[in-house]
Protein backbone atom coordinates (compact mmCIF):
# COMPACT_ATOMS: atom_id res chain seq x y z
CA UNK A 1 0.00 0.00 0.00
CA UNK A 2 1.44 3.38 -0.93
CA UNK A 3 1.85 5.95 1.74
CA UNK A 4 2.29 9.39 0.32
CA UNK A 5 3.71 12.09 2.56
CA UNK A 6 2.71 15.72 2.63
CA UNK A 7 6.22 16.59 1.36
CA UNK A 8 5.75 14.30 -1.62
CA UNK A 9 2.40 15.90 -2.35
CA UNK A 10 4.02 19.35 -2.20
CA UNK A 11 6.71 18.15 -4.60
CA UNK A 12 4.10 16.76 -7.01
CA UNK A 13 2.19 20.04 -6.85
CA UNK A 14 5.37 21.85 -7.84
CA UNK A 15 5.98 19.45 -10.74
CA UNK A 16 2.39 19.94 -11.89
CA UNK A 17 2.66 23.75 -11.50
CA UNK A 18 -0.20 23.90 -9.03
CA UNK A 19 0.06 26.51 -6.30
CA UNK A 20 -1.85 24.84 -3.47
CA UNK A 21 -2.82 26.28 -0.10
CA UNK A 22 -1.53 24.42 3.01
CA UNK A 23 -5.00 23.06 3.84
CA UNK A 24 -5.38 21.82 0.25
CA UNK A 25 -2.08 19.96 0.56
CA UNK A 26 -3.24 18.28 3.78
CA UNK A 27 -6.59 17.29 2.32
CA UNK A 28 -5.09 16.02 -0.94
CA UNK A 29 -2.38 14.00 0.80
CA UNK A 30 -5.03 11.92 2.58
CA UNK A 31 -7.17 11.49 -0.51
CA UNK A 32 -4.29 10.62 -2.84
CA UNK A 33 -3.10 8.01 -0.38
CA UNK A 34 -6.57 6.47 -0.29
CA UNK A 35 -6.97 6.51 -4.10
CA UNK A 36 -3.49 5.12 -4.72
CA UNK A 37 -4.20 2.37 -2.22
CA UNK A 38 -7.27 1.40 -4.24
CA UNK A 39 -5.73 1.62 -7.71
CA UNK A 40 -2.74 -0.42 -6.54
CA UNK A 41 -5.02 -3.43 -7.18
CA UNK A 42 -3.68 -3.43 -10.73
CA UNK A 43 -0.40 -4.76 -9.37
CA UNK A 44 -2.20 -7.99 -8.35
CA UNK A 45 -2.63 -8.98 -11.98
CA UNK A 46 0.05 -11.27 -13.34
CA UNK A 47 0.83 -9.54 -16.60
CA UNK A 48 4.58 -9.81 -17.14
CA UNK A 49 4.19 -11.24 -20.62
CA UNK A 50 1.26 -9.01 -21.62
CA UNK A 51 1.96 -6.17 -24.05
CA UNK A 52 0.78 -2.73 -22.90
CA UNK A 53 -2.09 -0.96 -24.70
CA UNK A 54 -1.73 2.79 -24.94
CA UNK A 55 -4.58 3.34 -27.33
CA UNK A 56 -7.84 1.65 -28.31
CA UNK A 57 -7.07 1.89 -32.03
CA UNK A 58 -3.99 0.22 -33.48
CA UNK A 59 -3.20 3.16 -35.78
CA UNK A 60 0.33 4.36 -36.49
CA UNK A 61 1.69 7.29 -38.45
CA UNK A 62 -1.48 8.81 -39.78
CA UNK A 63 -0.36 11.49 -42.23
CA UNK A 64 -2.24 14.02 -44.27
CA UNK A 65 -1.09 15.25 -47.65
CA UNK A 66 1.69 17.80 -47.32
CA UNK A 67 -0.31 20.67 -48.75
CA UNK A 68 -0.56 24.22 -47.45
CA UNK A 69 -3.90 25.02 -45.85
CA UNK A 70 -5.29 28.23 -44.44
CA UNK A 71 -4.78 28.63 -40.70
CA UNK A 72 -6.54 30.72 -38.08
CA UNK A 73 -5.98 34.48 -38.42
CA UNK A 74 -3.55 35.79 -35.79
CA UNK A 75 -6.05 38.40 -34.58
CA UNK A 76 -8.68 35.75 -33.88
CA UNK A 77 -6.22 33.74 -31.82
CA UNK A 78 -4.80 36.72 -29.94
CA UNK A 79 -8.30 37.98 -29.14
CA UNK A 80 -8.61 35.19 -26.54
CA UNK A 81 -5.12 35.72 -25.05
CA UNK A 82 -4.77 37.02 -21.48
CA UNK A 83 -2.36 39.63 -22.85
CA UNK A 84 -1.11 40.47 -26.34
CA UNK A 85 1.34 43.00 -27.68
CA UNK A 86 2.58 43.76 -31.21
CA UNK A 87 0.70 40.82 -32.71
CA UNK A 88 2.18 38.35 -30.21
CA UNK A 89 1.30 36.77 -26.89
CA UNK A 90 2.69 38.87 -24.05
CA UNK A 91 3.96 36.64 -21.26
CA UNK A 92 5.52 37.30 -17.83
CA UNK A 93 9.32 37.20 -17.51
CA UNK A 94 10.63 33.74 -18.20
CA UNK A 95 14.27 34.04 -17.15
CA UNK A 96 14.02 34.99 -13.48
CA UNK A 97 16.30 37.46 -11.67
CA UNK A 98 19.52 36.41 -13.31
CA UNK A 99 17.96 36.96 -16.78
Amino acid sequence: MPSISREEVAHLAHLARLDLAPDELDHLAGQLDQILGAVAQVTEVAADDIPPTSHALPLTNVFRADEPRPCLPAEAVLAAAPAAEDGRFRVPQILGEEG
Partner: protein
Amino acid sequence: MNSLTRARASELAAAVRDGEVSAVEVTQAHLDRIAAVDGTAEAGVHAFLHLDADGALAAAAAVDEKRAAGEELGLLAGVPLALKDVIVTSDMPTTVGSKLLEGWQPPYDATITRRLREAGIVILGKTNLDEFAMGSSTENSAYGVTRNPWDLTRIPGGSGGGSAAALAAFEAPLAIGTDTGGSIRQPAAVTGTVGVKPTYGGVSRYGLVACASSLDQAGPCARTVLDAALLHTVIAGHDPLDSTSIDQPVPDVVAAARRGAEGDLSGLRVGVVKELGGEGYQAGVEARFNDAVALLSKLGAEVVEVSCPHFKYGLPAYYLILPSEVSSNLARFDAMRYGLRVGDDGSRSAEEVMSLTRGQGFGAEAKRRIMLGTYALSSGYYDAYYGQAQKVRTLIARDFEAAFAQVDVLVSPTTPTTAFPIGEKVDDPLAMYMNDLCTIPSNLAGNASASFPAGLADEDGLPVGLHVMAPVMADDRLYLVGAAVEAAYAAQWGGTLLEQAPALEGIAP
Protein backbone atom coordinates in the same frame (compact mmCIF):
# COMPACT_ATOMS: atom_id res chain seq x y z
CA MET B 1 -47.85 15.00 -32.87
CA ASN B 2 -47.12 15.70 -29.20
CA SER B 3 -46.56 19.27 -28.12
CA LEU B 4 -43.45 20.74 -29.71
CA THR B 5 -41.25 20.23 -26.67
CA ARG B 6 -42.39 16.64 -26.09
CA ALA B 7 -42.15 15.52 -29.72
CA ARG B 8 -39.47 13.24 -31.03
CA ALA B 9 -36.67 14.85 -33.04
CA SER B 10 -37.65 12.77 -36.07
CA GLU B 11 -41.26 14.01 -35.79
CA LEU B 12 -40.18 17.63 -35.43
CA ALA B 13 -37.94 17.42 -38.49
CA ALA B 14 -40.73 15.84 -40.53
CA ALA B 15 -43.17 18.53 -39.43
CA VAL B 16 -40.69 21.25 -40.43
CA ARG B 17 -40.10 19.56 -43.80
CA ASP B 18 -43.82 19.22 -44.42
CA GLY B 19 -44.47 22.83 -43.46
CA GLU B 20 -46.73 21.94 -40.52
CA VAL B 21 -44.61 24.07 -38.24
CA SER B 22 -41.66 26.40 -38.81
CA ALA B 23 -38.22 25.74 -37.40
CA VAL B 24 -38.46 29.14 -35.72
CA GLU B 25 -41.62 28.08 -33.89
CA VAL B 26 -39.98 24.84 -32.79
CA THR B 27 -36.93 26.71 -31.50
CA GLN B 28 -39.03 29.34 -29.74
CA ALA B 29 -41.06 26.63 -27.98
CA HIS B 30 -37.85 25.15 -26.59
CA LEU B 31 -36.47 28.55 -25.57
CA ASP B 32 -39.75 29.17 -23.72
CA ARG B 33 -39.49 25.82 -21.97
CA ILE B 34 -35.90 26.58 -20.94
CA ALA B 35 -37.02 29.97 -19.60
CA ALA B 36 -39.70 28.21 -17.55
CA VAL B 37 -37.69 25.39 -15.99
CA ASP B 38 -33.93 25.90 -16.36
CA GLY B 39 -33.56 28.58 -13.69
CA THR B 40 -30.19 29.12 -12.08
CA ALA B 41 -27.57 27.12 -10.20
CA GLU B 42 -29.56 27.95 -7.05
CA ALA B 43 -32.95 26.77 -8.30
CA GLY B 44 -34.18 24.95 -11.39
CA VAL B 45 -32.71 22.28 -13.62
CA HIS B 46 -29.73 24.45 -14.60
CA ALA B 47 -28.79 22.31 -17.59
CA PHE B 48 -27.44 25.25 -19.57
CA LEU B 49 -24.34 27.34 -18.91
CA HIS B 50 -24.92 29.52 -21.95
CA LEU B 51 -28.02 30.07 -24.03
CA ASP B 52 -27.79 31.53 -27.53
CA ALA B 53 -31.41 32.49 -28.25
CA ASP B 54 -30.54 34.89 -31.08
CA GLY B 55 -28.15 32.47 -32.75
CA ALA B 56 -30.64 29.60 -32.40
CA LEU B 57 -33.50 31.61 -33.87
CA ALA B 58 -31.27 32.75 -36.74
CA ALA B 59 -30.21 29.15 -37.46
CA ALA B 60 -33.87 28.10 -37.38
CA ALA B 61 -34.84 30.95 -39.71
CA ALA B 62 -32.13 29.79 -42.12
CA VAL B 63 -33.73 26.33 -42.19
CA ASP B 64 -37.15 27.87 -42.89
CA GLU B 65 -35.65 29.94 -45.71
CA LYS B 66 -34.03 26.87 -47.24
CA ARG B 67 -37.36 25.11 -47.18
CA ALA B 68 -39.12 28.13 -48.69
CA ALA B 69 -36.51 28.14 -51.45
CA GLY B 70 -37.37 24.52 -52.21
CA GLU B 71 -34.03 23.12 -51.02
CA GLU B 72 -33.89 19.65 -49.56
CA LEU B 73 -33.62 19.53 -45.77
CA GLY B 74 -31.60 17.04 -43.72
CA LEU B 75 -33.32 14.42 -41.55
CA LEU B 76 -32.88 16.55 -38.43
CA ALA B 77 -33.03 20.05 -39.95
CA GLY B 78 -34.76 22.53 -37.70
CA VAL B 79 -34.44 20.36 -34.58
CA PRO B 80 -32.98 22.06 -31.47
CA LEU B 81 -29.96 20.57 -29.71
CA ALA B 82 -28.11 21.09 -26.43
CA LEU B 83 -24.31 21.00 -26.85
CA LYS B 84 -22.05 19.89 -24.02
CA ASP B 85 -19.74 22.76 -23.16
CA VAL B 86 -16.62 20.74 -23.94
CA ILE B 87 -17.14 21.09 -27.71
CA VAL B 88 -15.78 24.33 -29.12
CA THR B 89 -18.04 26.84 -30.81
CA SER B 90 -16.89 29.95 -32.68
CA ASP B 91 -19.99 31.93 -31.71
CA MET B 92 -20.48 30.87 -28.08
CA PRO B 93 -18.14 30.70 -25.10
CA THR B 94 -16.65 27.31 -24.20
CA THR B 95 -15.85 26.97 -20.50
CA VAL B 96 -15.58 23.18 -20.04
CA GLY B 97 -17.11 23.86 -16.62
CA SER B 98 -13.88 25.51 -15.46
CA LYS B 99 -13.02 28.95 -14.08
CA LEU B 100 -9.84 28.66 -16.10
CA LEU B 101 -11.82 29.13 -19.30
CA GLU B 102 -14.51 31.49 -18.04
CA GLY B 103 -15.76 33.48 -21.02
CA TRP B 104 -13.30 31.88 -23.42
CA GLN B 105 -14.44 32.37 -26.99
CA PRO B 106 -12.82 29.72 -29.22
CA PRO B 107 -11.66 30.99 -32.60
CA TYR B 108 -13.01 27.93 -34.45
CA ASP B 109 -15.77 25.32 -34.58
CA ALA B 110 -15.26 21.67 -33.65
CA THR B 111 -15.95 19.20 -36.45
CA ILE B 112 -19.05 18.11 -34.52
CA THR B 113 -20.25 21.71 -34.32
CA ARG B 114 -19.68 22.20 -38.04
CA ARG B 115 -21.54 19.00 -38.94
CA LEU B 116 -24.48 19.94 -36.72
CA ARG B 117 -24.72 23.34 -38.38
CA GLU B 118 -24.44 21.85 -41.87
CA ALA B 119 -27.29 19.45 -41.03
CA GLY B 120 -29.51 22.40 -40.10
CA ILE B 121 -29.63 21.36 -36.44
CA VAL B 122 -30.31 24.35 -34.20
CA ILE B 123 -27.79 24.69 -31.35
CA LEU B 124 -29.65 26.22 -28.40
CA GLY B 125 -26.67 26.64 -26.13
CA LYS B 126 -23.97 24.94 -24.09
CA THR B 127 -24.69 22.51 -21.28
CA ASN B 128 -23.19 22.09 -17.83
CA LEU B 129 -20.63 19.40 -17.02
CA ASP B 130 -18.09 18.39 -14.44
CA GLU B 131 -14.97 20.50 -14.86
CA PHE B 132 -12.97 19.20 -17.87
CA ALA B 133 -15.52 16.37 -18.07
CA MET B 134 -14.16 14.77 -14.89
CA GLY B 135 -16.86 13.47 -12.60
CA SER B 136 -20.06 11.46 -12.35
CA SER B 137 -22.46 14.04 -10.94
CA THR B 138 -21.85 17.43 -12.62
CA GLU B 139 -21.11 18.73 -9.10
CA ASN B 140 -17.52 19.44 -10.14
CA SER B 141 -18.65 22.26 -12.45
CA ALA B 142 -17.29 25.65 -11.42
CA TYR B 143 -20.69 27.11 -12.36
CA GLY B 144 -22.94 25.24 -9.95
CA VAL B 145 -24.85 21.99 -10.03
CA THR B 146 -27.37 20.67 -12.54
CA ARG B 147 -30.45 19.01 -11.04
CA ASN B 148 -32.05 15.75 -12.10
CA PRO B 149 -35.52 16.50 -13.55
CA TRP B 150 -36.84 13.33 -11.86
CA ASP B 151 -35.95 14.72 -8.44
CA LEU B 152 -34.38 18.17 -8.18
CA THR B 153 -32.48 17.23 -5.01
CA ARG B 154 -30.51 14.58 -6.90
CA ILE B 155 -27.60 14.55 -9.34
CA PRO B 156 -28.22 14.17 -13.10
CA GLY B 157 -25.12 12.04 -13.53
CA GLY B 158 -21.90 13.26 -15.05
CA SER B 159 -19.91 14.47 -16.59
CA GLY B 160 -22.63 15.20 -19.15
CA GLY B 161 -25.34 15.95 -16.58
CA GLY B 162 -26.40 19.12 -18.38
CA SER B 163 -27.03 17.39 -21.70
CA ALA B 164 -28.97 14.52 -20.07
CA ALA B 165 -31.01 16.86 -17.86
CA ALA B 166 -31.87 19.08 -20.86
CA LEU B 167 -33.38 16.02 -22.57
CA ALA B 168 -35.24 14.78 -19.50
CA ALA B 169 -36.60 18.28 -18.74
CA PHE B 170 -37.90 18.58 -22.34
CA GLU B 171 -35.62 21.56 -22.96
CA ALA B 172 -34.18 19.92 -26.09
CA PRO B 173 -34.94 16.70 -27.96
CA LEU B 174 -31.29 16.12 -28.88
CA ALA B 175 -27.98 16.64 -27.13
CA ILE B 176 -24.30 15.91 -27.58
CA GLY B 177 -22.28 14.24 -24.86
CA THR B 178 -18.73 13.00 -24.49
CA ASP B 179 -17.78 9.77 -22.78
CA THR B 180 -14.36 9.10 -21.28
CA GLY B 181 -15.42 6.61 -18.60
CA GLY B 182 -19.22 6.73 -18.81
CA SER B 183 -20.06 10.44 -19.13
CA ILE B 184 -22.72 9.85 -21.80
CA ARG B 185 -24.10 6.54 -20.53
CA GLN B 186 -24.29 7.10 -16.77
CA PRO B 187 -26.19 10.43 -17.08
CA ALA B 188 -28.51 8.75 -19.61
CA ALA B 189 -29.20 5.93 -17.14
CA VAL B 190 -30.02 8.17 -14.18
CA THR B 191 -32.23 10.55 -16.21
CA GLY B 192 -34.19 7.91 -18.16
CA THR B 193 -32.73 8.96 -21.53
CA VAL B 194 -30.75 7.31 -24.34
CA GLY B 195 -26.99 7.80 -24.54
CA VAL B 196 -24.58 6.19 -26.98
CA LYS B 197 -20.81 6.05 -26.81
CA PRO B 198 -19.79 5.19 -30.36
CA THR B 199 -16.72 3.13 -31.16
CA TYR B 200 -13.58 5.09 -30.26
CA GLY B 201 -12.63 6.99 -33.41
CA GLY B 202 -16.18 6.85 -34.75
CA VAL B 203 -16.82 10.56 -34.11
CA SER B 204 -14.15 13.21 -34.61
CA ARG B 205 -12.44 14.63 -31.53
CA TYR B 206 -11.31 17.76 -33.41
CA GLY B 207 -12.46 20.66 -31.25
CA LEU B 208 -13.32 18.50 -28.25
CA VAL B 209 -11.38 19.86 -25.28
CA ALA B 210 -9.32 16.83 -24.27
CA CYS B 211 -9.73 15.04 -20.97
CA ALA B 212 -7.98 11.71 -21.70
CA SER B 213 -7.27 11.50 -25.43
CA SER B 214 -7.08 7.72 -25.70
CA LEU B 215 -10.52 7.35 -24.06
CA ASP B 216 -12.57 10.46 -25.02
CA GLN B 217 -15.42 9.84 -27.45
CA ALA B 218 -18.32 12.14 -28.32
CA GLY B 219 -21.73 10.70 -29.06
CA PRO B 220 -25.45 11.27 -29.43
CA CYS B 221 -27.92 11.74 -26.56
CA ALA B 222 -31.68 11.70 -27.15
CA ARG B 223 -35.01 10.63 -25.72
CA THR B 224 -35.56 7.85 -28.25
CA VAL B 225 -33.34 5.31 -29.95
CA LEU B 226 -34.19 6.39 -33.50
CA ASP B 227 -33.46 10.04 -32.67
CA ALA B 228 -30.08 9.03 -31.27
CA ALA B 229 -29.39 7.02 -34.44
CA LEU B 230 -30.26 9.96 -36.69
CA LEU B 231 -27.95 12.23 -34.66
CA HIS B 232 -25.22 9.57 -34.70
CA THR B 233 -25.31 9.62 -38.49
CA VAL B 234 -24.90 13.42 -38.55
CA ILE B 235 -21.82 13.55 -36.31
CA ALA B 236 -20.02 10.27 -37.15
CA GLY B 237 -17.57 9.53 -39.92
CA HIS B 238 -13.96 10.08 -40.86
CA ASP B 239 -12.36 13.46 -40.23
CA PRO B 240 -8.88 14.19 -41.56
CA LEU B 241 -8.46 16.73 -38.74
CA ASP B 242 -8.49 13.93 -36.13
CA SER B 243 -5.69 11.44 -36.70
CA THR B 244 -7.49 8.85 -34.54
CA SER B 245 -10.68 9.07 -36.59
CA ILE B 246 -11.64 5.77 -38.25
CA ASP B 247 -11.58 5.89 -42.05
CA GLN B 248 -14.41 3.42 -42.65
CA PRO B 249 -18.10 3.75 -43.47
CA VAL B 250 -20.33 4.58 -40.47
CA PRO B 251 -22.41 1.53 -39.44
CA ASP B 252 -26.02 1.90 -40.61
CA VAL B 253 -27.42 2.74 -37.20
CA VAL B 254 -30.69 4.21 -38.51
CA ALA B 255 -31.59 1.01 -40.36
CA ALA B 256 -30.70 -0.97 -37.22
CA ALA B 257 -32.95 1.23 -35.06
CA ARG B 258 -35.84 0.79 -37.48
CA ARG B 259 -35.29 -2.96 -37.63
CA GLY B 260 -35.04 -3.22 -33.84
CA ALA B 261 -38.36 -1.40 -33.41
CA GLU B 262 -40.04 -4.33 -35.16
CA GLY B 263 -39.29 -6.24 -31.95
CA ASP B 264 -37.71 -9.42 -33.26
CA LEU B 265 -34.29 -10.29 -31.82
CA SER B 266 -34.28 -13.93 -32.86
CA GLY B 267 -30.81 -15.11 -33.78
CA LEU B 268 -29.14 -12.47 -31.58
CA ARG B 269 -26.77 -13.84 -28.95
CA VAL B 270 -26.65 -11.78 -25.75
CA GLY B 271 -24.09 -12.23 -22.98
CA VAL B 272 -24.80 -11.16 -19.41
CA VAL B 273 -21.48 -10.14 -17.86
CA LYS B 274 -21.17 -12.18 -14.69
CA GLU B 275 -18.77 -9.76 -13.01
CA LEU B 276 -21.03 -6.68 -13.39
CA GLY B 277 -23.54 -7.24 -10.63
CA GLY B 278 -23.93 -8.45 -7.06
CA GLU B 279 -22.35 -6.68 -4.12
CA GLY B 280 -22.57 -2.89 -4.35
CA TYR B 281 -25.46 -2.93 -6.81
CA GLN B 282 -28.77 -1.45 -5.69
CA ALA B 283 -31.58 -4.04 -5.49
CA GLY B 284 -33.91 -1.99 -7.70
CA VAL B 285 -31.20 -1.65 -10.33
CA GLU B 286 -30.62 -5.40 -10.38
CA ALA B 287 -34.36 -6.09 -10.53
CA ARG B 288 -34.88 -3.82 -13.57
CA PHE B 289 -31.77 -5.28 -15.20
CA ASN B 290 -33.07 -8.82 -14.71
CA ASP B 291 -36.41 -7.74 -16.21
CA ALA B 292 -34.59 -6.37 -19.25
CA VAL B 293 -32.65 -9.61 -19.68
CA ALA B 294 -35.91 -11.58 -19.48
CA LEU B 295 -37.38 -9.23 -22.07
CA LEU B 296 -34.46 -9.85 -24.43
CA SER B 297 -35.17 -13.60 -24.21
CA LYS B 298 -38.84 -12.97 -24.83
CA LEU B 299 -37.95 -10.97 -27.95
CA GLY B 300 -36.13 -14.01 -29.29
CA ALA B 301 -32.54 -13.40 -28.25
CA GLU B 302 -30.44 -16.26 -26.94
CA VAL B 303 -29.14 -15.15 -23.54
CA VAL B 304 -26.08 -16.71 -21.89
CA GLU B 305 -23.82 -15.76 -19.01
CA VAL B 306 -20.34 -14.63 -19.97
CA SER B 307 -17.32 -14.11 -17.75
CA CYS B 308 -14.97 -11.16 -18.23
CA PRO B 309 -12.52 -11.86 -15.40
CA HIS B 310 -10.42 -8.71 -15.80
CA PHE B 311 -13.28 -6.22 -15.78
CA LYS B 312 -12.88 -5.84 -12.03
CA TYR B 313 -9.49 -4.30 -12.69
CA GLY B 314 -11.00 -1.80 -15.12
CA LEU B 315 -11.71 0.80 -12.46
CA PRO B 316 -8.21 0.83 -10.91
CA ALA B 317 -6.55 0.72 -14.36
CA TYR B 318 -8.75 3.58 -15.53
CA TYR B 319 -7.89 5.71 -12.50
CA LEU B 320 -4.22 5.39 -13.41
CA ILE B 321 -4.49 5.82 -17.18
CA LEU B 322 -7.01 8.66 -17.09
CA PRO B 323 -5.19 10.89 -14.57
CA SER B 324 -1.91 10.27 -16.39
CA GLU B 325 -3.41 11.54 -19.64
CA VAL B 326 -5.20 14.36 -17.81
CA SER B 327 -2.00 15.58 -16.14
CA SER B 328 -0.43 15.80 -19.57
CA ASN B 329 -3.43 17.26 -21.46
CA LEU B 330 -4.21 19.86 -18.82
CA ALA B 331 -0.63 21.12 -18.92
CA ARG B 332 -1.78 23.22 -21.87
CA PHE B 333 -3.65 25.48 -19.47
CA ASP B 334 -0.55 27.50 -18.73
CA ALA B 335 -2.03 31.03 -18.53
CA MET B 336 -0.07 32.11 -21.60
CA ARG B 337 -2.24 31.80 -24.70
CA TYR B 338 -5.84 31.75 -23.55
CA GLY B 339 -7.95 31.55 -20.44
CA LEU B 340 -7.32 32.84 -16.96
CA ARG B 341 -4.06 34.52 -15.90
CA VAL B 342 -3.49 35.34 -12.23
CA GLY B 343 -0.76 37.41 -10.59
CA ASP B 344 0.88 38.90 -13.69
CA ASP B 345 1.97 42.06 -11.87
CA GLY B 346 5.43 42.45 -13.38
CA SER B 347 7.19 40.96 -10.36
CA ARG B 348 6.36 37.30 -10.91
CA SER B 349 7.94 34.91 -13.38
CA ALA B 350 5.95 33.01 -16.00
CA GLU B 351 6.32 29.87 -13.91
CA GLU B 352 4.92 31.57 -10.80
CA VAL B 353 2.03 33.02 -12.77
CA MET B 354 1.36 29.58 -14.23
CA SER B 355 1.26 27.93 -10.80
CA LEU B 356 -0.89 30.64 -9.27
CA THR B 357 -3.33 30.52 -12.19
CA ARG B 358 -3.64 26.75 -12.15
CA GLY B 359 -3.94 26.70 -8.36
CA GLN B 360 -6.82 29.17 -8.48
CA GLY B 361 -8.37 28.10 -11.78
CA PHE B 362 -8.71 24.35 -11.34
CA GLY B 363 -11.29 22.83 -9.00
CA ALA B 364 -10.69 20.08 -6.46
CA GLU B 365 -11.28 17.08 -8.74
CA ALA B 366 -9.11 18.45 -11.55
CA LYS B 367 -6.32 19.02 -9.04
CA ARG B 368 -6.71 15.51 -7.60
CA ARG B 369 -6.45 13.93 -11.01
CA ILE B 370 -3.54 16.09 -12.17
CA MET B 371 -1.66 15.15 -8.99
CA LEU B 372 -2.55 11.49 -9.31
CA GLY B 373 -1.35 11.43 -12.92
CA THR B 374 1.82 13.29 -12.08
CA TYR B 375 2.52 10.66 -9.43
CA ALA B 376 1.68 7.70 -11.67
CA LEU B 377 3.97 8.99 -14.43
CA SER B 378 6.88 9.93 -12.18
CA SER B 379 10.05 7.87 -12.38
CA GLY B 380 10.09 5.01 -9.91
CA TYR B 381 6.32 4.55 -10.11
CA TYR B 382 5.77 4.50 -13.87
CA ASP B 383 6.23 0.75 -14.38
CA ALA B 384 4.31 -0.32 -11.29
CA TYR B 385 1.33 1.95 -11.96
CA TYR B 386 0.93 3.38 -15.44
CA GLY B 387 2.79 0.54 -17.18
CA GLN B 388 0.85 -2.13 -15.32
CA ALA B 389 -2.46 -0.33 -15.98
CA GLN B 390 -1.69 -0.41 -19.71
CA LYS B 391 -1.20 -4.17 -19.50
CA VAL B 392 -4.50 -4.54 -17.68
CA ARG B 393 -6.02 -2.54 -20.52
CA THR B 394 -4.81 -5.23 -22.93
CA LEU B 395 -6.37 -7.94 -20.73
CA ILE B 396 -9.70 -6.14 -20.69
CA ALA B 397 -9.66 -5.83 -24.48
CA ARG B 398 -8.93 -9.57 -24.63
CA ASP B 399 -11.88 -10.28 -22.33
CA PHE B 400 -14.10 -8.43 -24.79
CA GLU B 401 -12.56 -10.28 -27.73
CA ALA B 402 -13.22 -13.66 -26.10
CA ALA B 403 -16.76 -12.64 -25.14
CA PHE B 404 -17.61 -11.37 -28.62
CA ALA B 405 -16.44 -14.68 -30.06
CA GLN B 406 -19.40 -16.22 -28.20
CA VAL B 407 -22.06 -13.49 -28.30
CA ASP B 408 -23.11 -10.51 -30.43
CA VAL B 409 -23.61 -8.04 -27.57
CA LEU B 410 -22.95 -7.92 -23.84
CA VAL B 411 -25.31 -6.42 -21.27
CA SER B 412 -25.07 -5.14 -17.69
CA PRO B 413 -26.67 -2.42 -15.60
CA THR B 414 -25.30 0.97 -16.75
CA THR B 415 -24.44 2.10 -13.24
CA PRO B 416 -24.70 0.35 -9.87
CA THR B 417 -27.19 2.79 -8.32
CA THR B 418 -29.88 5.26 -9.29
CA ALA B 419 -29.33 9.03 -8.97
CA PHE B 420 -27.98 9.89 -5.52
CA PRO B 421 -28.61 13.10 -3.54
CA ILE B 422 -26.58 16.17 -4.47
CA GLY B 423 -23.66 16.52 -2.06
CA GLU B 424 -23.61 12.88 -0.93
CA LYS B 425 -20.33 11.83 -2.58
CA VAL B 426 -18.78 15.13 -3.56
CA ASP B 427 -15.75 14.82 -1.27
CA ASP B 428 -15.49 11.03 -1.37
CA PRO B 429 -13.66 10.38 -4.65
CA LEU B 430 -13.56 6.58 -4.34
CA ALA B 431 -17.33 6.35 -3.79
CA MET B 432 -17.86 8.68 -6.76
CA TYR B 433 -15.57 6.63 -9.00
CA MET B 434 -17.71 3.50 -8.39
CA ASN B 435 -20.43 4.98 -10.62
CA ASP B 436 -18.35 4.11 -13.67
CA LEU B 437 -17.71 0.48 -12.80
CA CYS B 438 -19.74 -0.96 -15.70
CA THR B 439 -19.01 1.71 -18.30
CA ILE B 440 -15.22 1.98 -18.02
CA PRO B 441 -14.25 -1.33 -19.73
CA SER B 442 -15.67 -0.09 -23.06
CA ASN B 443 -13.62 3.09 -22.88
CA LEU B 444 -10.46 1.12 -22.20
CA ALA B 445 -11.13 -1.28 -25.09
CA GLY B 446 -12.65 1.34 -27.40
CA ASN B 447 -15.75 -0.66 -28.34
CA ALA B 448 -19.23 0.81 -28.76
CA SER B 449 -21.66 0.94 -25.80
CA ALA B 450 -24.95 2.56 -24.90
CA SER B 451 -27.49 3.03 -22.13
CA PHE B 452 -31.24 2.66 -22.67
CA PRO B 453 -34.10 3.30 -20.21
CA ALA B 454 -35.04 0.09 -18.36
CA GLY B 455 -37.71 1.29 -15.94
CA LEU B 456 -37.75 2.66 -12.41
CA ALA B 457 -36.20 1.16 -9.29
CA ASP B 458 -38.83 0.00 -6.80
CA GLU B 459 -37.22 1.55 -3.73
CA ASP B 460 -36.89 5.14 -5.03
CA GLY B 461 -38.89 5.36 -8.28
CA LEU B 462 -35.82 6.60 -10.17
CA PRO B 463 -34.64 5.55 -13.65
CA VAL B 464 -32.39 2.56 -14.28
CA GLY B 465 -30.32 2.04 -17.42
CA LEU B 466 -29.68 -1.07 -19.50
CA HIS B 467 -26.07 -1.05 -20.67
CA VAL B 468 -25.42 -2.72 -24.03
CA MET B 469 -21.88 -3.29 -25.30
CA ALA B 470 -21.00 -4.16 -28.91
CA PRO B 471 -17.72 -4.83 -30.70
CA VAL B 472 -15.64 -2.11 -32.36
CA MET B 473 -17.51 -0.65 -35.36
CA ALA B 474 -20.63 -2.71 -34.58
CA ASP B 475 -22.45 0.35 -33.20
CA ASP B 476 -25.54 -0.71 -35.19
CA ARG B 477 -26.09 -3.65 -32.79
CA LEU B 478 -26.61 -1.20 -29.92
CA TYR B 479 -29.44 0.45 -31.83
CA LEU B 480 -30.98 -2.87 -32.82
CA VAL B 481 -31.18 -4.00 -29.19
CA GLY B 482 -32.07 -0.55 -27.83
CA ALA B 483 -34.94 -0.04 -30.26
CA ALA B 484 -36.35 -3.52 -29.61
CA VAL B 485 -36.30 -2.96 -25.85
CA GLU B 486 -37.73 0.54 -26.25
CA ALA B 487 -40.65 -0.69 -28.39
CA ALA B 488 -41.48 -3.53 -25.99
CA TYR B 489 -41.36 -1.23 -22.95
CA ALA B 490 -43.41 1.45 -24.70
CA ALA B 491 -46.14 -1.16 -25.21
CA GLN B 492 -45.86 -2.24 -21.57
CA TRP B 493 -45.71 1.27 -20.04
CA GLY B 494 -48.05 2.94 -22.52
CA GLY B 495 -45.32 5.34 -23.64
CA THR B 496 -41.74 6.30 -22.92
CA LEU B 497 -40.25 6.20 -19.45
CA LEU B 498 -39.88 9.99 -19.45
CA GLU B 499 -43.63 10.40 -19.69
CA GLN B 500 -43.65 9.17 -16.07
CA ALA B 501 -41.29 11.95 -14.95
CA PRO B 502 -42.75 14.71 -12.77
CA ALA B 503 -43.85 17.90 -14.50
CA LEU B 504 -41.56 20.85 -13.83
CA GLU B 505 -43.94 23.67 -14.61
CA GLY B 506 -43.17 27.02 -13.14
CA ILE B 507 -40.12 26.17 -11.08
CA ALA B 508 -37.95 28.96 -12.42
CA PRO B 509 -38.33 32.66 -11.65
